């Protein structure tokens, strides 16, 4: 236990130490920077609710990644899956003839899941059938999805008149997911994220599917002898991963931007990869760490306003957290051995 506290202390001070150093190099006030990040993310319900809007897609992506990591797949294509989910959802929202908002939104949600899942499936097929490592297949598909969404926004789905990087025409108000008064986060988003967490926990830790994914991840060759087809479960896990990413894409268009924009994924896929690594590929820390990461993202906006410091500092802190945690983990393993 004492060792544990010491390790956490080391990890946290590494993060603070490195970040302070970076701030000093940039000639910025160190303590003020940290203070402003915290104030900018948790100082008011308004800000906290903004943090939650980031928290929702992060949690959704992380849940998806837990499935793929379980099967020992590096689903770096998650960015593209978010994009394709958003495109799928948007396709339904743009469909003429439907009247009932609840129905349209539900259909759009399903389409987003299908869009993300299909893109995941594609990466999975590239791996299982095409022999392309999922990292490269995924990256390539990310670029393709990025090209596709730009083409849609500047082509068939462009705004009347001027196509611009601000994206497609704004959705009608009735298709916005509603938020509590004064809050910026949609009820539905919170509900979906929490449901996703519970479902993921049930699937991964309590169902046979979770066990089988773990088995595949640990030893695909042996899995064949247990009548578990690695190929099938790879595909399944990456489809599930893609589906969760698609949900995140859906939240982005219906609850955050209310339209399709080129950067709809907001880099949450990559951020979620970091998050899941920091959580040690386990579900329990995910909601908390997601809150932390979301807080950094939102709070860092105070830096340019108040201190005229670039807000990419949040990314530096996030990356540094993961590396410090990995470092401490490596040291622990090393200690254990000697």
């Amino acid at each position, binding site marked *: 236990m004492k060792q544990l506290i010491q390790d956490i202390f080391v990890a946290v001070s590494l993060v603070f130490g490195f970040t302070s150093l970076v701030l000093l190099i940039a000639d910025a006030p160190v303590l003020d920077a940290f203070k402003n990040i915290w104030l900018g993310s948790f100082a008011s319900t308004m800000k906290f609710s903004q943090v939650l809007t980031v928290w929702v897609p992060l949690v959704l992506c992380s849940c998806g990644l837990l499935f793929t990591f379980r099967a020992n797949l590096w689903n770096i294509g998650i960015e593209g899956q978010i994009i394709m989910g958003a495109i799928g959802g948007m396709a339904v929202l743009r469909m003429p003839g439907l009247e009932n908002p609840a129905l349209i939104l539900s259909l759009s949600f399903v389409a987003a899941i299908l869009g993300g899942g299909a893109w995941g499936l594609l990466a999975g097929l590239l791996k299982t059938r*095409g*022999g392309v490592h999922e990292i490269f297949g995924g990256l390539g598909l990310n670029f393709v999805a990025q090209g596709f969404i730009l083409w849609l926004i500047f082509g068939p789905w462009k705004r009347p008149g001027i196509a611009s990087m601000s994206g497609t025409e704004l959705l009608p108000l009735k298709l916005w997911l509603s938020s509590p008064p004064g809050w910026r986060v949609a009820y539905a988003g919170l509900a979906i994220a929490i449901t996703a967490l519970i479902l993921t926990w049930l699937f991964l830790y309590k169902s046979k599917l979770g066990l089988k994914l773990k088995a595949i991840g640990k030893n695909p060759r042996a899995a064949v002898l247990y009548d578990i087809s690695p190929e099938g479960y790879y595909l399944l896990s990456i489809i599930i991963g893609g589906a969760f990413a698609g949900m995140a894409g859906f939240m982005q268009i219906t609850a955050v931007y209310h339209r399709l924009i080129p950067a709809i994924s907001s880099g949450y896929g990559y951020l979620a990869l970091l998050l899941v690594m920091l959580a040690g590929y386990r579900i329990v820390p995910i909601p908390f760490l997601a809150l932390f990461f979301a807080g950094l993202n939102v709070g860092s906006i105070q830096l340019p306003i108040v201190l005229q410091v670039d807000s*990419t500092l949040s990314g530096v802190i996030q990356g540094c957290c*993961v*590396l410090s945690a990995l470092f401490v983990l490596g040291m622990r*393993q090393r200690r254990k051995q000697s």
Partner: protein
Amino acid sequence: MLRIERPVCSGYATEAQTIMIGDIPLSVLVASVLAASVPLIIIALGEMITEKSGVINLSLDGAVLFSAMVAFVVAKESDSLIVGFLAGGCAGMVTGLIVGYFSIYLHLSQVAVGFALSLLCRDLAYFLGNPYSRVQGPTLISSKLPFHDMLPDFLQKITTQPLTVPFALGLIVLLVWFFKSSRAGLQVRSVGENPAAAFARGLNPNRIQMLTVLAGSFLVGIGGAAYSLSLKPGWGRPQGAEGIGWIALALVIFGSWQPSRVALGALLFAFLQVSGIGLQSLFPTIPSQVFQTAPFPLMIFTLIIMHYSTSKTRKHGEKDSGLHKWLGILFMSRAPKSLGKSYRQE
């Protein structure tokens, strides 16, 4: 100062006889492709060296940006291109040091460390480089061969290049020799193939890996510097080198861990990107994004062909001939055996 005015583009006069790709003369296309591929060649070769020793440095994308930033800032402050390039190399080496230490000595997942570092380096570059964005700094310009004027026009265009071009070409030759004929190259390969056996033969796999990673990441840093000091001079957000690291990683596979083929892949990629601009005017109805995104699906497509031909060729062993053999030579790919696995000394 006396200077003989060279016609801005002598190709203009002889345009009628020149082969044109879109509206670009062929010689110009070759020269552009060569210039555009140089940083990519250097970066991909750096990564290839690293992977030859069995370590994947996935931080490439961030490392390139970080070293580009450092190179530009240092070159500007010191007003020296050489110092800038060296600083870029050192910045790259720092990322290599982290990946190397974490994976070789702490036995952590190379992919996890590399990915986290990649995002960290990217944001660090933006953060620290912010005060230097879009300011004027030193730039490496093209230089002519000493016997430039004796060459035909076609060659004049191709050979007027920044010094990074001969550097990259020399690097290819050097690495071909290094891995084929040098003792150190053989040791690096042996560690990448079977570190346990290398250890049994008295080598120190960890040290060899670490040194190789450092050397490789130094080159990656030089490649990053080649962006901010030569190909896309200056720093800013976006710099223009974003995403290049991922492409370099794919190129190493495409090139089957052979220097000449990796370089060929980089040239091919640069060709697709450069000719995309020309194609835009040939096919105005196709959105420009299509040409720019095309290299990526094409790269994946090649990897699939590679997988197909590799498995066929393996199955048929050496007996095979004809199409499969041809495909095999072109697309067969084989990674160092212990790539990505960390070696624990017993």
